[in-house]
């Protein structure tokens, strides 16, 4: 492990430590907000596995999120707490199964066509819950009693949910970090860089891509499960393309190709939204919060070509570039 790897690991560990201590500092509003952002961060991590690690841009990620959420609500008994030990895995598997089916078909296409086919399958799932009575139609459905694990964990309490979500986030991050360092992860990186060459070296790339797609769907399902438990409510908007778009924007903003980019992006996107929506700062103009968010995004594209993750590197290059030109100038003066 060289010092850059170590500083990255230290950064991520510091982030998780701050998140673990945060409830001591903020009130219930902060806990609620950060729980929501952590759910988005898990969701963003799931997409990062596809976009950043494998090079597959999926525009239908919200479907897996939504299926995880709907599974959590539909499978919960009406008047007693569902067992967390079975409901969580079942929700994840439901989302992963849909991802397996979608991936098996849509991986036949490439590039923008792949983007659009994944959108098409997400829209199909959206219209199934939107137009049929299966999931309460456009009104959505409520989850009256939140799942629990005996008397040990009851997700009804907002602090319990906070730490459970944090644990899921750490677990998802660690799982992906290990996965991407494994042989499997290296194969995905190879597919991203040059799929032809991977095939030429004897890898059958399709099963690798399908496995990545299925895993990604499962992790998105986990995020969806947590979202449903947090809000106690699901509606078709959880599967809409707006959410697929928003999560894609999060990881691009954070910086594609780095797991911590997904974390940073989710936090940056959600906190920017909160900032521009805040009436305390912008007063009556707060209802036009899209304007500030949009301008910030445009500025970040113009100034941060590698996303927020690339910012320290950009600074370092600047400093080194400056000191180098300064020494060159010094040498020139010495020679003269």
């Amino acid at each position, binding site marked *: 492990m060289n010092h850059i790897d170590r500083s990255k690991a230290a950064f991520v560990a510091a982030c998780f430590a701050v998140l673990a201590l945060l409830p001591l500092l903020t009130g219930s509003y902060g806990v609620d907000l950060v729980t929501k952002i952590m759910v988005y961060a898990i969701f963003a991590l799931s997409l990062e596995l596809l*976009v950043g690690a494998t090079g597959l*841009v999926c525009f239908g990620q919200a479907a897996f999120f939504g299926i995880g959420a709907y599974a959590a609500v539909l499978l919960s008994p009406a008047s007693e707490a569902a067992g967390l030990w079975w409901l969580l895995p079942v929700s994840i598997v439901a989302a992963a199964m849909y991802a397996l089916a979608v991936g098996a*078909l*849509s991986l*036949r*296409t*490439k590039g*923008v*066509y792949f983007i*659009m*086919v994944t*959108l*098409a*399958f997400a*829209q*199909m799932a959206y*219209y*199934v819950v*939107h*137009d*049929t009575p299966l999931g309460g139609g456009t009104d959505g459905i409520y989850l009256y009693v939140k799942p629990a694990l005996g008397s040990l964990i009851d997700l009804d309490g907002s602090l319990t949910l906070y730490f459970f979500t944090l644990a899921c986030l750490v677990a998802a991050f660690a799982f992906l970090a290990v996965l991407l360092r494994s042989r499997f992860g290296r194969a995905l990186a190879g597919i991203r860089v040059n799929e032809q060459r991977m095939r030429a070296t004897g890898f059958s790339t399709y099963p690798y891509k399908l496995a990545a797609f299925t895993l990604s769907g499962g992790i998105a399902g986990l995020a969806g499960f947590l979202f449903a438990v947090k809000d106690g409510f699901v509606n078709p908007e959880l599967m809409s*393309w*707006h959410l697929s*778009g928003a999560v*894609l*924007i999060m990881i*691009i*903003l954070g910086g*594609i190709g780095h797991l911590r980019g997904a974390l940073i992006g989710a936090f940056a996107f959600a906190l920017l939204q909160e900032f521009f929506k805040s009436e305390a700062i912008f007063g009556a103009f707060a209802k*036009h919060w*899209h*304007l500030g*968010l*949009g*301008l*910030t*995004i*445009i500025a*970040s*594209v*113009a100034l941060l*070509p590698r996303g927020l993750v690339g910012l320290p590197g950009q600074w370092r290059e600047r400093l080194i570039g400056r000191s180098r030109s300064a020494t060159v100038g010094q040498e020139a003066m010495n020679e003269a």
Partner: protein
Amino acid sequence: MDFATFLIQCLNSLQYGLLLFLVASGLTLIFGIMGVINLAHGSFYMIGAYMAFALAPVVATTFGGGFFATLLVGTVLAVALGYVLEWIFFSFLYEREHLQQVLMTYGLILVFEELRSLAVGDDVHGVQPPEILAGTLPLGEMMTYPVYRLFVSGVCLALAIGMWFVFTRTRLGMMIRAGSTNREMVQSLGIDIKFLYRVVFAAGVAIAVLAGMVAAPVSSVYPGMGNSVLIICFVVVVIGGIGSIRGALLAALLIGAVDTFGKVLVPQAAGVLVYVLMALILLWKPDGLFKAG
């Protein structure tokens, strides 16, 4: 469904399909030639529709003109807008990854929507068709068909033919086609590719704005209308094959027919039909119906 209803639905699907084609053709041109995924394209359609609503009184007082003067002024403004936008926001993006462009154009959507909200508000508006075109044509004994919808189809057809002519019969069209195949080669032959891109972008914006203005009296004017048309236009573009104008026309007419008849025949599943169609076509032909180049 009797014959007159069938005929009306045919005309409706044709009108919707042609309108989709107009918006989608700009999208496919910009993507096929410049390689930019322009999410803000739907916003140009929205801007056009709001122009038809907000510009009409201004044009009436300054030029004393009516609907057609508004169309003309709007188109000129749109060309200028496209030219300036390409210059400020896109000219430095070509070397970057596609995803950076996606992020940028997403930011533009938010900005355009909010500027629209600041300038005209969030209300839904209706736009009156011009008086000459306000009448209806009788169809059968009971049914009538509004003249304005026929006018929309006519305008779209005329523009489609115009685009075909420019593309295949003029020097500019030749340069555009060459630019979409090999950027460096065209540049080394001494053609100013930056200027060419700016022209293509401005043309794409102008067509989308014009489509929005023409559509305003039919569809009414509402916030978020750009986003819904954007997704459908992407569907049209990929079904047709990216960069292919011919494919976009065929795909737009197909989508128009499936959507219109879907709403009449199976109203509970109308929304999903378009996407099922897209998935089936792309699984059958992974590069769309007509792959350009």
